[in-house]
């Protein structure tokens, strides 16, 4: 059944792709006739229009705001009328080790999230694929994807219910079982790299594993049948059939994640540690830093400076990761 479905999908894709190819050829033939070309492509341009408008309004227009980072904003003079101050707004970032800490945290957290989540999600997808009873497969799928649908604010209180010192499950029930002393989680920064990673896996793994499961399902079962006849163990099947065949999906998902490595999940880093200042050394990432700078200092010049810093480092990082990807496999690179 599954096999049939995927075959259908493939033939449909082939059909669409060949159609496109034919179109290209035809386009090459009628290059001369502009009017015809317009007629041909107007619907496509129209389709592109909303997306383009969104991109311009949402991603390009705000770039104008970058000048705020170089100004001493005075509301009575307006944005353009305020005085230029050069790089003065950036000084406070580098005055302390803040810039280093938030950059380090952002990159290390996201890098470890990519690695841990990918490995975990593939493992989970393979396990799910092995479940033969339909009911249980559906049941487990739903259970693991559920956290993905919960808001971070709710997640933060779930975590609080575990970690709170007065009422938390861990401090009140689990640690006493082992005769251990309660731990003040919200003022001990050393635990948070692990807590945040666990929370992130718990929340993100379901979604990712469903993506991988979809690609595992589309693998032709004949491979497995042949392997079983040859006496291959499950482990060998996984290593030599499943993983290589879903490699393109893994590469793509990882690349997408690397492209976003400089954007951290604000809810995770702000809500889950309950905005506890003393944890900031291990929980502050660039997004939360920019937010706090604006909210606590109320200085849009300085918080824009932090925002510009994020954009610049993020840009460099995308270039670097793209460069690395090109070396690894050219067709997967973004540009």
């Amino acid at each position, binding site marked *: 059944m599954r096999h049939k479905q995927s075959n259908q999908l493939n033939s449909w894709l082939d059909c669409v792709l060949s159609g496109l190819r034919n179109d290209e050829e035809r386009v090459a033939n009628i290059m001369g006739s502009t009017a015809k070309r317009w007629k041909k492509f107007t619907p496509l341009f129209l389709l592109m229009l909303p997306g383009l408008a969104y991109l311009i309004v949402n991603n390009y227009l705000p770039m104008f705001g970058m000048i705020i980072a170089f100004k001493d904003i005075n509301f009575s003079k307006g944005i353009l009328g305020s005085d230029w101050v050069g790089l003065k707004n950036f000084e406070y970032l580098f005055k*302390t080790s803040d810039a280093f800490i938030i950059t380090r945290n952002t990159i290390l957290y996201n890098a470890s999230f990519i690695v841990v989540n990918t490995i975990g999600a593939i493992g989970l997808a393979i396990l799910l694929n092995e479940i033969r009873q339909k009911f249980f497969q559906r049941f487990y799928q739903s259970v693991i994807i559920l956290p993905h649908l919960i808001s971070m604010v709710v997640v933060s209180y779930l975590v609080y219910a575990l970690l709170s*010192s007065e009422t938390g499950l861990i401090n009140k029930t689990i640690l006493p079982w082992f005769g251990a002393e309660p731990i003040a989680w919200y003022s001990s920064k050393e635990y948070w790299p692990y807590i945040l990673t666990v929370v992130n896996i718990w929340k993100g793994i379901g979604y990712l594993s469903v993506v991988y499961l979809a690609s595992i399902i589309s693998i032709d079962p004949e491979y497995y049948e042949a392997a079983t006849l040859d006496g291959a163990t499950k482990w060998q099947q996984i290593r030599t059939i499943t993983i290589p065949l879903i490699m393109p999906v893994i590469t793509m998902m990882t690349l997408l994640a690397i492209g976003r490595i400089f954007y951290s999940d604000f809810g995770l880093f702000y809500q889950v540690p309950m905005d506890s*200042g003393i944890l900031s050394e291990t929980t502050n990432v660039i997004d939360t830093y920019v937010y706090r700078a604006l909210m606590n200092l109320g200085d849009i010049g300085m918080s824009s400076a932090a925002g510009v810093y994020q954009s610049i480092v993020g840009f460099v990082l995308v270039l670097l990761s793209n460069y690395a990807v090109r070396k690894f496999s050219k067709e997967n690179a973004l540009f």
Partner: protein
Amino acid sequence: MTRKHGWIGGLLAIPLLLAACSSNNGSNEAAGPNSGGSTSAASDGAGEPYELTMAYFTLGSVPKDQLLIQDELNKITKAKLNTTVKLLPISISTWQNQINLMLTSNEKLDLMPILGNTYANQVAKGQLVELDELLAKHGTGILEALGQDYASAAMINGKTYAVPSVRDLAQSYGFQIRKDLVDKYNLNLGQVKELEDLEPILKTIKDNEPNMIPLVNQAGGSPFSDTFSTRDSLGDDMGVLLNNGQDLKVVNWFETEEYAATLKLMREWYKAGYIGKDAVTNKESTSDQIKGGKGAGNLANMKPGYDVQESRQAGMPIVSVEMMPPVAKTSTVTNIMWGIAKNSDKPERALQFLNLMYTDKDIVNLLDWGIEGKHYVKVSDNVIDYPQGVTAGNVGYAGTGWLFGNQFLSYIFKGDDEQLWEKMKEFNTNAIKSKALGFTFDSTSVKTEFAAVSNVLSQYRLALECGALDPDKVLPEFIKKLKDAGIDKIIAEKQKQLDAWAAANGK
């Protein structure tokens, strides 16, 4: 097939329904102000109609009759100023964030209370309207109510950007606790003078009421820092005057022995369970915690009639002990002020309304106590009480008296001292006065350091002051970070400005 279509049809219908609902709302809203507008145009209002937006903070949750108060208020302001006022209460725990957001994003905002610790910064950024001219023209009532000294206490570089509310302009510090606990365990509050003296009381409560936190803290605030103080913080605690500002030498508060000793005490209390283990992440006000039976007492800024005020807030009898005599500093005066946001379209109108808040007994009492007959009844000319069946616990509105303009115009609540306002005036005049009273620090020239130090403070301070961290280990680290961030430069600049101010004012 048909089933599928029906499903899609249903989906398509949802936006239509939503659109229908929203358009209904729209027309309703549009009808409201219009009908109001036509009546007011006939009355002799001052100029065209205008809606003022007045943001302010609430200490507990927003009262349920909030909108009734607004309607009632608008009847008065419509007649006097042809103005309606939109009340925008914001919880104190999110106040700073919200107001910063409103100011920076240029949202509609006219009047707002200004807290002393952000005042100078807001002025430096040009977020507040300069008031001197407006005050002379429309605000004579405000100036009269405050008196020249206090009106000028908020000047920055000789200009006024905000006016203090008329209330207790000095502060005494002390400890408040549920009265039933005092009676039950025979606690002796009379002996308490120093923080250490609280220890036996806290211990008794901890031993006998294991589920109660003996000393609670304000949401996002330390148990003692703002509520038990021997220093003049000069607005922001980055460089303070010790001994209530009796000499004009600016020092680093976080390096003093007094600070270290207090942290040590807090650490002991935290370990002993006198301070909540979750104090750092606490998101509830002290009165809500006491009201909810979670907490027993807290350190507080006090003034005449304090017990009665707090009992009303907490909905149960509260007693308190004064641990330090009243002191007046710039921060106690500029603590709560009113200013006009740069966002305001009609600053004159905002000031005219503000003037009413300092002169009009009806408006003050409406904002402080609510509607006569519904939220209070008059017992005698100047004394009020709850109507029958209404208690502190279920009253639909309770305002914050010291916030809304001139508290001395407010009715005295039954049970309060009828001479309360006379005593308060006396309290204000007799307070120990910091020598730096009237000085406000302008941080513009050390903006970078100010921002960096603010970040360090928000990182360390709360956890240290709640006792959640060991000061022996963390305090030196904290001090080092402060120095790296440039606190010494701020202190030097502050000393310079203070010396110049002292010379100019003959102190």
